[in-house]
C-alpha cells in the first residue's frame, strides 16, 4: 500500500503530546529533571557515537537481534494464517524490557546519576533494571507491590541476587500502579543523584517517547526479518498491551506502512463484563495518572479502580498515551483476551512449539490463535513474544493445584 501521498507520522509534539494525550502531569519538583532528561535524550538521539554504543550493547550484552521465528506447528494448530513469533523472550533476562533499561542506564550515566530506581509488576522490568545497574556498578532500588511480590517470587529473588533492593509497596491495591506511585515519591526526594527508569511507554514526557524509541529495535528488526523471509511485510502485527512498551516497540516502525494492520491485546481478566480486568483502552475513559493524559480505569468520581489480570505485567489501570492516540486515530485496534484464554494459549505454545511464553505474551498468542483461524494461509501474522514464562510457572502450577 503506497503511503507516499500522506505526511509521515510524527509524534509527540515538543510538549510531549500525542494528539490530546501524553503531556507532563507531575509535581513541579520533577519538571527540572524531566527537562534535563529531554534535552539529553534529544541530543543523544542525534549522536552517532551514542547510537553506536547502544547498538553494540544490544548486540553483545542483550544478544540482539532476536530471531523472527516461523511457528509452523502453531500455525497448523490455528489452521489459517502463517504465524511468526518475534522472540523477545530470547533476550538476556528473558524479556523485551532490557532494550529500554540498557538505553536509559546509558542516559543515567551521562547525567552522572549514581542510583537507579524502577517500578515493576511482573518483575521483568525490575530484573532488567537490576541487571544494568549491576553491569554499570550503580545502586538500585526496585519498588514492587506486595501482591506482586507474592506472585512473582522468582523474579524478586533474582533482583536480590543482582544486588538490588526490592522495596515492598503496601499502599492501595499493592500492585504495579502503587509501585509507580512510590517510585515517583522516591524520585521527588532523590532527584539529584537518581534516575527513574520507567519501564513502559507511560509516565510524563519524555518517557513515552524515549521508551518507545529504545523498544523500536523490536519492530525495526522484525520488519527487516519479515522482508528477508517473505519478501513482503506482514498483514497483521499483534502484541499484548499493559503499559504498552513491547507493543509500541513492535508497532512504531510500521506506523507508515498502511497495509499492515495493528492489534493490541489488553488483559480481559475475568471478562470485560465483570469489571475485573485491566483493559483501559477497551473499557476505560481518558484521564490523568502517573504523569500523562491517557485512557485509564477510574470510577465516576475519578478514583483509579483496582484492576485484575492473571498476568502481573498487564495488571495496570493506565496505558501509554501513544496507544490512546492510535486508538482514536484508528491506526491500531485494541482488543482483549481473558485469563482463561491466555492460560490456554500458554499451554498451546508450550506443546506445539516447545516455547514457554510469559503470561503477558500469552494474551497476544491467544488472540492470534483466534484471528489466524479466520484468515487465509497466505496471510502473515507477526506476534511479539515479549517474554518467557519461567517466572509464571508458580502461577500456572497454582492454577493446576500443583505445588512446585
Amino acid at each position: 500500500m503506497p503511503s507516499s501521498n500522506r505526511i509521515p507520522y510524527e509524534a509527540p509534539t515538543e510538549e510531549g503530546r500525542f494528539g490530546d494525550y501524553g503531556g507532563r502531569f507531575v509535581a513541579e519538583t520533577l519538571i527540572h529533571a524531566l527537562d534535563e532528561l529531554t534535552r539529553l535524550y534529544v541530543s543523544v538521539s542525534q549522536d552517532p557515537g551514542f547510537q553506536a554504543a547502544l547498538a553494540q550493547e544490544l548486540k553483545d550484552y542483550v544478544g540482539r537481534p532476536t530471531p523472527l521465528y516461523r511457528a509452523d506447528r502453531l500455525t497448523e494448530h490455528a489452521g489459517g494464517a502463517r504465524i511468526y513469533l518475534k522472540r523477545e523472550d530470547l533476550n538476556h533476562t528473558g524479556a523485551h524490557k532490557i532494550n529500554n533499561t540498557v538505553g536509559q542506564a546509558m542516559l543515567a550515566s551521562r547525567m552522572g546519576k549514581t542510583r537507579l530506581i524502577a517500578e515493576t509488576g511482573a518483575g521483568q522490568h525490575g530484573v532488567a533494571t537490576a541487571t544494568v545497574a549491576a553491569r554499570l556498578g550503580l545502586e538500585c532500588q526496585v519498588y514492587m507491590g506486595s501482591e506482586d511480590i507474592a506472585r512473582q517470587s522468582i523474579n524478586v529473588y533474582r533482583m536480590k541476587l543482582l544486588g538490588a533492593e526490592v522495596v515492598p509497596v503496601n499502599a492501595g491495591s499493592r500492585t504495579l500502579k502503587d509501585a509507580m506511585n512510590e517510585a515517583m515519591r522516591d524520585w521527588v526526594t532523590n532527584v539529584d543523584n537518581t534516575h527513574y527508569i520507567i519501564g513502559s511507554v507511560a509516565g510524563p514526557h519524555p518517557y513515552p517517547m524515549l521508551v518507545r524509541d529504545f523498544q523500536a529495535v523490536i519492530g525495526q528488526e522484525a520488519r527487516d526479518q519479515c522482508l528477508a523471509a517473505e519478501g513482503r511485510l506482514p498483514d497483521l502485527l499483534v502484541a499484548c498491551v499493559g503499559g504498552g512498551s513491547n507493543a509500541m516497540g513492535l508497532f512504531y516502525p510500521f506506523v507508515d506502512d498502511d497495509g499492515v494492520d495493528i492489534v493490541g491485546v489488553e488483559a480481559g481478566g475475568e471478562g470485560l463484563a465483570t469489571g475485573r480486568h485491566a483493559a483501559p483502552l477497551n473499557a476505560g475513559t481518558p484521564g490523568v495518572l502517573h504523569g500523562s493524559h491517557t485512557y485509564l480505569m477510574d470510577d465516576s468520581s475519578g478514583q483509579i479502580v483496582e484492576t485484575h489480570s492473571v498476568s502481573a505485567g498487564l495488571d495496570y489501570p493506565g496505558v501509554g498515551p501513544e496507544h490512546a492516540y492510535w486508538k482514536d486515530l484508528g491506526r491500531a485496534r485494541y482488543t482483549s483476551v481473558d485469563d482463561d484464554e491466555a492460560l490456554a494459549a500458554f499451554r498451546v505454545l508450550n506443546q506445539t512449539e516447545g516455547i514457554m511464553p510469559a503470561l503477558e505474551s500469552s494474551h497476544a498468542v491467544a488472540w492470534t490463535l483466534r484471528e489466524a483461524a479466520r484468515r487465509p494461509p497466505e496471510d502473515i501474522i507477526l506476534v511479539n513474544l515479549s517474554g518467557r514464562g519461567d517466572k509464571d510457572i508458580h502461577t500456572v502450577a497454582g492454577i493446576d493445584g500443583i505445588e512446585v
Partner: protein
Amino acid sequence: MSRLGERFETLAADGRKALNTYIVAGDPSPEVTVPAMHALVRGGADLIELGVPFSDPEAEGPTIQAGIERALAHDVTLADVLDMMSAFRSDDRDTPVVLMGYLNPFLRMGYEAFCKRAAHAGVDGIIVVNLPAEEAGTFRGALHRRHMDLVLLVAPTTTAERAAYIAAQGSGFLYYVSYKGVTGARRADARAVAKRLTEVRAAARGLPVLVGFGIKDGASAAGIAPHADGVVVGSALVETMGCTAAASIPDRLQAQVREIRDALN
C-alpha cells in the same frame, strides 16, 4: 477581589503572616470535616486548604496518604467535598478555602461543571499537585471566569526564570515547596528556604508566597515565616486527625493551630 486577595490585604495591613492549614476532606469520616474546619478558624487559621481525596496521591508522604485512605474508606468524592464546602460557608463567609488535590477527579467532573459547582459552594481557589503551569491553561481559564484562583507551586528545583513564568500563570498566592520530597518527610530547613525565597519573592512580583512542606509546629513555622508571607501546615494536623477520637478532633485541632498562630505573632 476574591476572598484570598482580601485576606492577604488585611494580613499585610496588620503586618501578620498567613497561617494556611490543610486537612483532608472526609478524614477520618465525613461528618468531622465541617466542625474541624471551624476549629481551624477558631485556632487562628487565616486560610484553609481542603484536601480532595485521590486514590493515587503520588506526592504525599505516609501521614497524608493515611488521611486520604481514611476518607476513601467512606467513598468521599469531589462532589461530597463541595457539599462540605457549602455547609462550611453557611456559617463562615470570610475564611478563604482552597481545594487541594490531584487532577483526575476534577477532570472527571469536567472543568466547567466543577467550576460552576465550586463557585456556588464558596470555593476560592484550587491547588492541583500534578498540574504544572504548562498544562494548566484550560482549567485556569474556567476558574478565572468564576472568579476563583489557580494556585501554582514552585519547588527547590525550579529555575528562577521558570519561577517567574509560574508566578505569572498563577493567582491567589504562590506555594513554595520547602524541600525535595513528599509531604511530611522532614523539617523545612529555614536557612535553605530563606536563601531561595529572596529569588522566588522577586519572581512572584507581589503575589504572596506561602511556604509548605516540613512545617509542623510553632517553632518551625516561626523559623520560616520571616522569609515568606505565610506558612502551610498539613501533615502535623492530619496526624492529629488520625490519632484522635472523632469527638475530640475540633478541640485538639484548635489548640494545635493556636500554638502555631501564637508562635507566628
